């Protein structure tokens, strides 16, 4: 039963990631260069929708809070995120979208996966040495959440469902308000410069 669920949910997840363009490095690079924020709008909307539905589902008794799995906060989360960000921008893939992109027939995604296996291997081998440093020391209450889940400590007390729904509304609002691009193409800004006597001509 578990394996059938794994196949159905894994396939659905891969399918959706491909259909939103997340397995296309051009869509990722466009988002990170702030010239094509379509994927950013999709992600913000998805996080908002999932957060709202999850907490409403738990309040309605449809989702068991024992299924939650909140990860700990520690210095390594930030350092790891910073390192991952560089690799994400360089390759245009993250672990999940790299796997999906390999399924769409991209050869660079296979190369990314080989690199990923080596990166994960280096970490696995160096874990003993890293563990001795302060990098795994808890931050901000360790496994904590913003909204009260009933299963983990939360930063905000009060009705968890209400807090989560407010966060969800904020994220979905942000996804609607976000323009499709924050930076103009160079051609556009050149034109602006040419029409503006205060800006130096090149």
């Amino acid at each position: 039963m578990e394996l059938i669920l794994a196949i159905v949910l894994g396939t659905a997840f891969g399918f959706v990631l491909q259909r939103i363009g997340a397995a296309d490095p051009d869509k990722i690079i466009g988002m990170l260069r702030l010239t094509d924020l379509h994927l950013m709008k999709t992600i913000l909307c998805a996080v908002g929708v999932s957060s709202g539905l999850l907490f409403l589902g738990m309040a309605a008794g449809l989702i068991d809070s024992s299924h939650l799995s909140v990860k700990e906060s520690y210095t390594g989360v930030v350092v790891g995120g910073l390192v991952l960000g560089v690799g994400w921008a360089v390759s245009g893939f993250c672990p999940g979208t790299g796997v999906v992109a390999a399924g769409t027939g991209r050869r660079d995604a296979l190369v990314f996966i080989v690199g990923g296996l080596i990166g994960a291997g280096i970490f696995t081998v160096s874990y003993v040495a890293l563990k001795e440093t302060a990098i795994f020391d808890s931050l901000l209450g360790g496994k904590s959440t913003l909204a009260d889940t009933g299963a983990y400590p939360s930063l905000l007390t009060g009705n968890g469902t209400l807090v989560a729904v407010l966060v969800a509304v904020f994220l979905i609002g942000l996804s609607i308000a976000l323009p499709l691009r924050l930076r103009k193409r160079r051609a556009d800004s050149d034109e602006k410069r040419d029409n503006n006597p205060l800006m130096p001509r090149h």
Partner: protein
Amino acid sequence: MYWNWKIGGPLLGLTFVLAVALMKPIGVSTQFVILDAMIADWISPTVVVEDSAAASGYASSNAYLNKSGGKYAAEVANPLNYSFVFVLSMVLGGLLGRRFQPRLGKQPKIRQLPAAHELQFGHNTMQRYLLAFCGGVLVLWGARLAGGCTSGHMMSGMMQTAISGYLFAAAAFATAVPTAMLIYRREE
């Protein structure tokens, strides 16, 4: 043609909620370690051993695989577990997604080199592979240090309003945006 965000966003969100309702939050990057360890254990069968004293029933000479009562070691010993099969199935999802992509006429061949890459570096396949490889090393090393990736921290984490999810997302975008602007700076 990709889905509009108004359709794609809710459907992606729904996938994450369904996964947690039926099983547990989605995560991907751990499975790179699991596959590494499967390969290591195949080469040298002493990497993961049965150990009735461990909480999971398995132990490893590697401290990372051995943590949390040998949780990872047990997954290495039993490849047909939920998390590993989930990630394998994502390959099929990608294949089907592309196969049934709405299109005009015949499906064009997939563009192997990203347009941003060709614009910046020209039609240079080896260089693309080099960047994809180096990116892969950094992404998975970083994800393992952080304890999760874009799926586990950014999506599943922020869904649960986990503080670690917000921290991770802020950190990842803080370097990804300037790096992308610097490397892929050429416009058409």
